[in-house]
């Protein structure tokens, strides 16, 4: 899908629509945001079957490292990314189950008593979510299911959207004026409905025991939160949608089609500042068709047990993924916003919950970190035997968003060495 690179402002139609509702405190950042100069974003991507370390990690540490075969595909952006080796989430075990902890770092997924915790994007959304039309965008590329990387503070997963065309429709395609009015009417009625049920919940709350009261509080707070979201949605509904000069994407059927369509969408969403927080879970299971040099199913490939033919196919599969990633980085670095490239304003985290897909090892997670205005161009090599806590990077990312937070999950501080 060819997309011309345009400044975000050219997408935005002049906002000549008078607001019909009282000015809301909650809305202020949304309308002031355009003038702030350092609106940073996060895009976090997890490819779920690991990345072959021998082709990913470079030789040498620091700034003078030698690009590895995979990193060769990103050679043009060498100064705009950092490779991190020897890091992982402390106590996150459980092989494939660790997918759900990629952005939460919640320990021991896959055990019966596991409870997930808030993910990086949702934590950030609590601070900056209301500045954009969509607070966060949990996405997935998968054969089936709606599993995502995003979790609320009570550990509930936010369903992922896996159709780029559906997201495109929601972000960029406005209805007729009559349709907009109807939509606004719907949102308002929605609020009246929720107001009524919130009252019902508080009436019920008085008649139950303390354990149940906590449940009802959770319900009550959720309802109030949705009311607030509907109110914000109403304001956004009045604001014209950004116009994009590209046809709606098609969803595609195969891995590379899907991935490419999803990356295009991610770039559009960032360029138009429709959201600043995007997560993408790439579940490779069942995908393999239509990738040159790959004929075996990907999960099967990931358990290569050291066989040369499988390793060769796996390398082709992963290379193809890196080429798509290179395209995304290229697009982001070409798009400009207030003189900066969009890549400078976007923290791009790419990695896997598995350090070794063959034996389900969750240590030594492969991590690539790009953009966001950090000092890049280096290989941060930590101890592969005694891993560095990855949540420390999350703390640095949050701080870069302007969130004064010195902790995230099992962090022990902020990651140093990236300050520009």
């Amino acid at each position, binding site marked *: 899908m060819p997309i011309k690179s345009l400044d975000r402002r050219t997408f935005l139609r002049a906002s000549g629509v008078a607001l019909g509702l009282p000015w809301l405190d909650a809305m202020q950042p949304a309308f002031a945001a355009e003038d702030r100069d350092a609106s940073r974003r996060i895009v976090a991507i997890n490819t779920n079957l690991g990345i072959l370390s021998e082709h990913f990690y470079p030789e040498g540490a620091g700034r003078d490292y030698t690009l590895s075969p995979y990193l060769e595909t990103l050679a043009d952006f060498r100064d705009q990314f950092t490779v991190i080796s020897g890091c992982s989430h402390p*106590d996150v*075990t459980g092989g*494939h189950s660790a997918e759900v902890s990629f952005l939460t770092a919640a320990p021991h997924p896959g*055990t*019966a*008593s596991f*409870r997930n915790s808030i993910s990086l994007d949702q934590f950030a959304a609590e601070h900056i979510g209301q500045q954009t039309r969509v607070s966060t965008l949990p996405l997935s590329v998968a054969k089936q299911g*709606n*599993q995502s990387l995003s979790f*609320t503070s*009570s*550990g*509930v*997963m*936010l*369903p992922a959207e896996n159709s780029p065309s559906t997201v495109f429709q929601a972000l960029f395609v406005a209805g007729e004026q009559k349709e907009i009015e109807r939509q606004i*009417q*719907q949102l*308002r*009625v*929605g609020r*009246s*409905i*929720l107001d*009524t*049920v919130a*009252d*019902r*919940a508080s009436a*019920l709350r008085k*008649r*139950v*025991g*303390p*354990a*149940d009261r906590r*449940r*009802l509080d*959770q*319900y009550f707070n*959720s*309802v109030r*939160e*949705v009311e607030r*979201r509907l109110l914000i949605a109403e304001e956004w509904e009045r604001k014209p949608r950004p116009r994009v000069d590209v046809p709606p994407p098609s969803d595609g*059927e*195969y891995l590379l089609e899907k991935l490419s369509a999803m990356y295009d969408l991610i770039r559009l969403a960032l360029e138009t500042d429709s959201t600043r927080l995007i997560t993408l879970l790439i579940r490779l*299971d069942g995908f393999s*068709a*239509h990738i040159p040099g790959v004929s*075996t*199913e990907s*999960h*099967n490939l990931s*358990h290569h*047990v*050291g066989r040369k033919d499988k390793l060769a196919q796996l390398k082709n599969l992963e290379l193809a993924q890196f080429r798509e990633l290179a395209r995304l980085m290229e697009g982001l670095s070409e798009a400009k916003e207030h003189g900066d490239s969009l890549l400078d304003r976007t923290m791009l985290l790419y990695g896997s919950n598995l350090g070794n897909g063959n*034996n389900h090892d969750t240590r030594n997670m492969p991590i690539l970190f790009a953009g966001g205005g950090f000092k890049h161009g280096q290989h941060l090599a930590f101890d592969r035997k005694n891993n560095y806590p990855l949540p420390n990077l999350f703390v640095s990312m949050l701080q870069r968003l302007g969130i004064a937070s010195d902790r995230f999950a099992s962090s022990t501080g902020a990651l140093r060495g990236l300050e520009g």
Partner: protein
Amino acid sequence: MMLTRPTLALFVCFGCFAFLATADEPARRAYERDVRPVLKALCYKCHGPDDDKGGVRFDQLDPDLVDGSDTETWHDALDQLNRGEMPPPKAKQPTAEQRRLLTDWMVSALRDAAEARRFKNGRVTIRRLTRYEYANTMRDLLRIDLDFARELPPDPASQAGFLNNGATLEMSPTQIEVYLKAARKALADAIVTGEQPELYVFTQTKTAVGKLPNRKVAGHKPVRPEFVLDLKEFPRNGEFELKVTARAAIPNDQGLPRMRVSMGHVPGIIHVPRGKVGEVDVSDKTETFTFRGRMEDFPQPGPIAFGNSGFKGMIVLIDFVDADGNELRYPDRTYAQPPAKPQKKPGGKKKPEPKNEPATVSFGSRLDIEVTSVEFKAPAYTSWPPPSHQRLLFDSQNSDDEPRYVRELLERFMTSAFRRPATKEEIEQTAQLFEVIRPKTDSFEEAVRETFASVLVSPHFLYVVERRDPQSGNHRITDFELASRLSYFLWSSAPDQQLLQLAHQGKLHDSKVLKQQVERMLEDVRSSEFVCRFIDQWLDLDALNRVAVNPEYFPDFDNELKQDMQKETQAYFAVLLHEDHSALELLDSDWTMLNLSLARHYGLQGPRSSRFEQVDLKPASRPGGLLGQGAFLLANSNGEDAHPIKRAVWILDRLLDSPPASPPPDVPELDAESPDLARLTLKEQLEVHRQKESCANCHQGIDPWGIPLENFDAVGRWRIEVPRHKKRPATAVDATSVLPDGKKIDGVDQLQRYLVEDCSEKFARSLVKRLMAYGLGRSLDFGDRKAIQTLTSRFVENDFRLKSLIIDFVQSETFQTK
């Protein structure tokens, strides 16, 4: 009287404090004086300052079971002491007096704690509906068949593996958004406005012919349907109905051919995006099969039609496969694809001679099918307004008086939705919402939809609510609450009219009535929800989907078989329940439930179609019961080979209620890539494993349970040899082991006999506990101990009949109290 509020509050507070203080102090003193010294003498050596085996240190356990955080550890300690597992045989054993002192203290402290906790916090009695309960409840309430749960996040499983545990069912804003959206969408369907929408009807008796991709293009498979129905016009939303009349010719008792129906469109020449409408076996009787679906769930063409396929709108495609999944096509038949034109060769060469047209073969002499008619109708309303509309907006003499009418409607709707009579205030409050909304909408119906939507996102609908009366101390549930407990237990859905009626009359808790109702509910088709959900969760059948079968080891394995395996186990349990067999047949029997493809997979004969039927296993001497079923065997393999540890853990956990402790975090994995290990079979690898001291401790109690099943390969087929793999030569299966109690076991038959003869009570207790946790929607705690014991004894006395267990359970104090 001038007793002011603050004074009273102070008095109460002081009272509480005093009570706690006095109750606590002597208990702690008694612990320090009597209990701690015994623990010190018997347990500290391994679980004390010098060592913390299993992560337990008795010197640090909090003896306060009410407020402390170690209650469950004490609970485990008591269980292990009672089972004689601790102290271990080699260690110093307690004297009879010491044993009594320890058990007495733990039992009474645990009992007090359970009661105190119940008193202080109450159990979680407000339980959110699970995804599937929500979907069922919406469907039964609105009589609309939509995939209501699609956008809801998955529910987490509890410690015991159940999805309906109130304590783990959380709520988030996203869920509220989905509930609101789903309610509005469903009500827009259920309550209609205006004239009946235009009806689209297409009927064909012969296939339409057009250009479809007939060879592999860019990796897309060719599309070669037997029959195409051409829908030149179609609605983009709403329910459709598709009727296909067909028959098959099946000579020589072959398996029935299967008809596959899909719907989509033809955007170009490469592929045909389409979704599955349904699949059905066709017999030699002419039959009309009815399929239903929703237009919006299928790929639709954009506003502009492309291509020269001849199909501009949507198409319905029908094709057939034989019992092995091969397409049924004959060269002499007419298909939806026009015959390929003979290619002109450049250079004026002669066209190849047209081959003789194959003579038409008469129907009946070979495996064949014939579609005689296909009818499409959308939107599929049986009447206008549809029955859902008539039920929700019933006729009333007050229908001209909107305020009165809406209150009548609400009373009936809220009573079904809340599963108890709605109170006056609730109705009034909701009616006021109607009054707010009404001026903003064009029609009465629209305002009613929105008002009803508020009922469907209400806590009384989304949660199973049991109110608490803190004053009375009476924990008995009301008849309406009982109706909901019953229906969510046995139907995973809301109580029906009859249950609510009996609750209304106050008769439901009567034990005779209750028994009749349970019997009626189990007869009802909705009880298949109980069978499937309980079996899936108890036995963790979902694990089937977490194992990837490696095609390198099993090139012929079709992943569809996983679903068949799941159905085998569900259908088997359904027979045990409905035909009142002994539950011990879960451990051992000589029959199972199979369809054609699964029977073939096991190398058995009998079923001719995809329908499951009872198959006698005696002639093939394949073991029956759960241990011989693919669902268990495959789910507890690694997709390449049998996995004795996984299988053993499953038996210990799911069947015998003695799950081994999870491995400590610092256990090194066996390095499968190490060259020496690669030469060994898994069983031999396990022996190496057990020689390591750190592993032996636990694995001596685990592995022997899995090894007798070595005659089953990873995908559940019988084997007598572990096939060659890479450097490892083929080896004969060795299925002999020695159980922890010294019993020698050779093969699955002996293991099954041992389970039935020596473990039947343990198994019964395990089943009782899982059934209780599922039926109550919560984790069991110490307060349930007595009930577990009573129900287990009754279950054993009643020859392990499931029906009588369910009836006993439902009539028990535990089921009827909060």
